[in-house]
């Protein structure tokens, strides 16, 4: 086979900066490297020496797409260390806040970033000329998610209202009422959006992942639950570092995660759905069935459907939480510092986000460990690419290139926790 190099210098529809190199030798995929080349951001080091009350403001800055996830893992880990138990209304408000982030993050990815792949458009701008209604729905969904974030978090991005022990201020029922009205409309739009994606052409592609997600006895997981896997893992967040390891690879500034002695695993919507489908309400399950989503989805190209199901669920759940909401007697539990280590894992839109903090007796952070979902999925993304490229060796360069980019976007990598440009390079020798 003639030597060939395929190069994509810029892929706009991912969050962050990275590059990809595919080496094809003698007709076989030889090496796949997803490189995150941004300088390390040192957030873990930045947290050292800071007071525990500063954690939420610092970690929110890690990402402009999923700052609530960082705040939720951070607040639960600090509260775990300090022995704080929040009351039910606070717990419900945090779940409601997370619903807002899931709605806006998923809506953005489904329609603006991922859908153009399936419909053959270079971007959402071109797609909007022919599928304006779908894009309008996404904008409206995103706005509703943002409205929730603004009301509960104080602003849309890098929220300022969450604090250790609860919130600085909690909303009244009257303040939530207009958001509930918007959510009813958003739920209808989410259903239409899911049905729209249900008609997309999906490549035949099956992978045998080990799914990892939170599992809670009573609810589809967001802020609480044990870490479980499709291969039988069942641990508390405190045991995360005994089961998972991070390793450095020479071509990336981001650490890769793997399960000890088992290797790559998948976190995110596909894993959550596979491991928690039984916690979805019947009407949401009916929609999943209507669009042909299997109980366990093994085709990452169909992850767009799972995200769509989760948007419907997040709207549904947010409405339930608002209906049941009774403002707490006080907005927060006053925290008292103590020397301890705290652990937490919550479900960011892209999967489990692990935080650990060691705090000294006066409340100073001594060290911190943060493992974002995209870092955990890097090995899976590389494995997917190997399979996609192997299956597509006969494709012309442009088609193969597009398929590889689509494959990356299947996992909605939030590399803005590390990146912004994605350069794809395929080498054939």
């Amino acid at each position, binding site marked *: 086979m003639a030597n060939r190099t395929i190069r994509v210098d810029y892929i*706009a*529809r*991912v*969050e962050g900066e990275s590059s990809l190199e595919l080496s094809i030798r003698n007709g076989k995929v030889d090496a796949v490297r997803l490189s995150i080349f941004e300088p390390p951001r040192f957030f873990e080091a930045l947290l050292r020496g800071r007071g525990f009350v500063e954690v939420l403001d610092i970690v929110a800055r890690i990402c*402009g*797409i999923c700052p609530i996830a960082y705040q939720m893992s951070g607040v639960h880990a600090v509260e775990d260390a300090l022995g704080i138990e929040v009351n039910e209304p606070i717990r419900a408000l945090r779940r409601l806040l997370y619903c807002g982030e899931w709605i806006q993050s998923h809506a*953005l990815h489904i329609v*603006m*970033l991922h859908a153009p792949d399936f419909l053959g458009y270079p*971007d*959402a*701008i*071109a797609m*909007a*000329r022919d599928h*304006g209604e779908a*894009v*309008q729905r996404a*904008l409206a969904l*995103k*706005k509703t998610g*943002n409205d929730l974030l603004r009301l509960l978090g104080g602003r*849309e*991005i*890098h929220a300022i209202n969450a604090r250790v022990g609860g919130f600085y201020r909690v909303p009244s029922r009257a303040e939530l009422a207009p958001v509930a009205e918007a959510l009813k409309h958003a739920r209808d739009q989410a259903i239409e959006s899911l049905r729209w994606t249900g008609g997309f052409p999906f490549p035949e592609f099956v992978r045998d992942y080990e799914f990892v997600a939170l599992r809670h006895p009573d609810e589809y997981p967001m802020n609480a639950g044990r870490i479980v896997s499709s291969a039988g893992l069942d641990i508390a967040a405190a045991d995360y570092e005994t089961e998972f390891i991070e390793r450095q690879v020479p071509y990336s500034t981001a650490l890769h995660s793997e399960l000890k002695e088992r290797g790559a695993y998948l976190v995110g919507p596909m894993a959550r759905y596979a491991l928690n489908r039984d916690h979805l309400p019947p009407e949401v399950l009916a929609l999943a069935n209507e669009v042909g989503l299997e109980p366990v989805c093994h085709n990452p190209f169909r992850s767009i459907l799972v995200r769509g199901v989760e948007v419907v669920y997040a709207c549904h759940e947010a409405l339930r939480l608002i209906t049941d909401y009774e403002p707490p007697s006080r907005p927060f539990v006053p925290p008292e510092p103590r020397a301890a280590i705290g652990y937490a894992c919550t479900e960011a839109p892209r999967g489990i986000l692990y935080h650990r903090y060691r705090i000294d007796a006066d409340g100073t952070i001594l060290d911190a460990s943060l493992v974002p979902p995209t870092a955990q999925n890097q090995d899976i993304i590389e494995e997917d690419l190997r399979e996609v490229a192997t299956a597509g060796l006969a494709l012309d360069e442009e088609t193969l290139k597009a398929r590889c980019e689509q494959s990356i976007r299947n996992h909605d990598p939030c590399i*803005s926790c590390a990146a*912004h440009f994605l350069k794809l390079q395929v080498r054939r020798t």
Partner: protein
Amino acid sequence: MTGDQQPLALVIGIGNRDRGDDAFGPAVAHRLMGRVPSTVRILEHSGDVLALIEDWDGIPSVIVIDAMAPISKPGQVHRFDLTESPLPIGFAPSSSHALGVAETVELARSLGRLPQCLLAYLVEGEQFETGVPLSPVIAAAVADVAERVLAELSTILETDGRAQHA
């Protein structure tokens, strides 16, 4: 203008106040506060630029102020009328998110959700470091752009007034 009345014009200063010259847009917006008629809304925008489409919904005239990467001389101010045509290549401000200002404007154009009049003032920045103030040359452009925006608003409102009385 009462709280529920739709403004006739909107001025949006885009940028992050904590990232050096990226604070240019918010600095101009801040300077305009209290100096515009009650029919004009001033907005600072620091993050999700896709929300611009919702922000300007129903408002006939919009002026966007932003900083851009230097291409000729830091402090140079460029004015564009985006009502009929996109930002020229090379002038599109970069964004740390998937969709930047230029893409958002074009998305709105595709959807038929552009304002009737959309102007952009872009200043070439010098540095975008975290936690540092505006560069002197960029800070010097704040007052100039604010005055130019006030003149634009005067023209826009006068034209709108004539249209309403026609």
